[in-house]
């Protein structure tokens, strides 16, 4: 799953929570990374900016794992390239 989208999502996640990138795998539950509902909102906001997408509140509430987040982004962004002006990971 090391495509550009999942790589970028994991990089942004690492940046938002200030955790080493290599500690995060695609199947990690967000909770196991110490990510609560408020962190999730911040993460999704960064992803919305980076991928120029809009994630609905209902979808935002349903994400539980890193994979859920990646799939949500992939659903909305397809394989489009990421915004280079987004915060560096």
């Amino acid at each position, binding site marked *: 799953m090391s495509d550009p989208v999942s790589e970028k999502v994991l990089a942004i996640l690492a940046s938002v929570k200030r955790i080493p990138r290599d500690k995060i795998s695609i199947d990690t539950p967000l909770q196991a990374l110490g990510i*609560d*509902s*408020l962190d999730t909102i911040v993460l999704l906001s960064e992803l919305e900016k980076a991928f120029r997408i*809009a994630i*609905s*509140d209902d979808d935002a*509430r349903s994400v539980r794992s890193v994979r859920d987040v990646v799939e949500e982004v992939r659903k909305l962004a397809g394989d489009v390239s990421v915004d280079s002006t987004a915060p560096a990971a």
Partner: protein
Amino acid sequence: MTARRVVVTGLGVICALGHNLAEVWCALRAGRSGIGPIRSLDVSNLRFQNGAEVREYDTGKHFGSGADLLDRFAQFALISAREAVADSGVTLTPELRENTAVVSGSCVGGQSTQDAGFVELYRQERGRVHPLTIPRTMANAGASHISVEFGTTGPAFTISTACSSANHAIGQAFRMVRSGEVDLAIAGGSEAPFSMGLLKAWEAIRVIAPDTCRPFSRDRRGMILGEGGAMLVLEPLERAEARGARIYGEIVGLGMSSDAGHITQPSVEGPARAMRAALRDAQLHPEQVGYINAHGTGTPGNDPTETRAIREVFGAHADRLAVSSTKSMHGHALGAAGALEAVATVMALHQGLLPPTANFIGPDPECDLDIITHRARAAQVECALSNSFAFGGLNAVLALRTHLR
């Protein structure tokens, strides 16, 4: 000095349900929601479109040429204070003015003023903002204008504890009257949060429902912002009886607590401790409480948590007390919420009619309380609680008792 009994002798309110007490109570008892499409702003770029706005509001009718000095939130504070004072029939003698407190709650202060100033500054690059931006924006503007209008020179201040602001405010006023520090208090809260900057901030935190507010119901999707103001006139029972005042009800306790936990996620224990503290302060047994006007925001998170807190405090009695959230009708007016709900709760005790939860579409097993839905329930309960739990984990609960003549 021994503690005095504190009664409510005047009520004033303006919100999405009406411009005065009669209109608002009429809507509350009918279960009529004031939630609808937001009209004061273009919300086409927001994920939510509905709010509980004050409709057909004419600033000039209330303030004439002096309106420029007051942001909308301070106008609501003053309008509701005018009604409450007139409703109480109290004569503000020079001596009483010195012994009158004004305590208001506001979460966000003069948002529309601030937003308009920032548009001029950053978007229109005018390089200056309106010279009245500071006095209009300050969160204490409501309390200050009330004090100026009525010439009250006792303690006056504003409390800002997010969604608990007005309950903390009414609670402090209650304690000042109870202790004998003042002989009269005008207390409540006001809010006018419909500015684009603030709506965008609420959108970003993802707690606003895209449809409507359905507290304790299945398929609830969040809260709905509301605006308005509500004020209560509080005085010692002896003074109220001596002047033959109409007594709406008695405030008997205040309970406060802090979750000391998460900045936005509610806890069970913090609200439970606040409810217990209110009962203790009021010297009430849990079995004396027959109605709770819940914080009931309609978010997926609050309502099950509040349900568990109520069960923890009341045990088996939780199944024998009625619960409703009037936010389903007047919306969540942030720093005014507790004041709107105090008015609803006092009126419920006074009229023997418990206001319902509107927009309820079916039970949620996680919110398995006796929720009053759609229509008011006739019931003369002895005591009631009114809950407010804030972002930041700051909780304030008022205990009220029916006044028996």
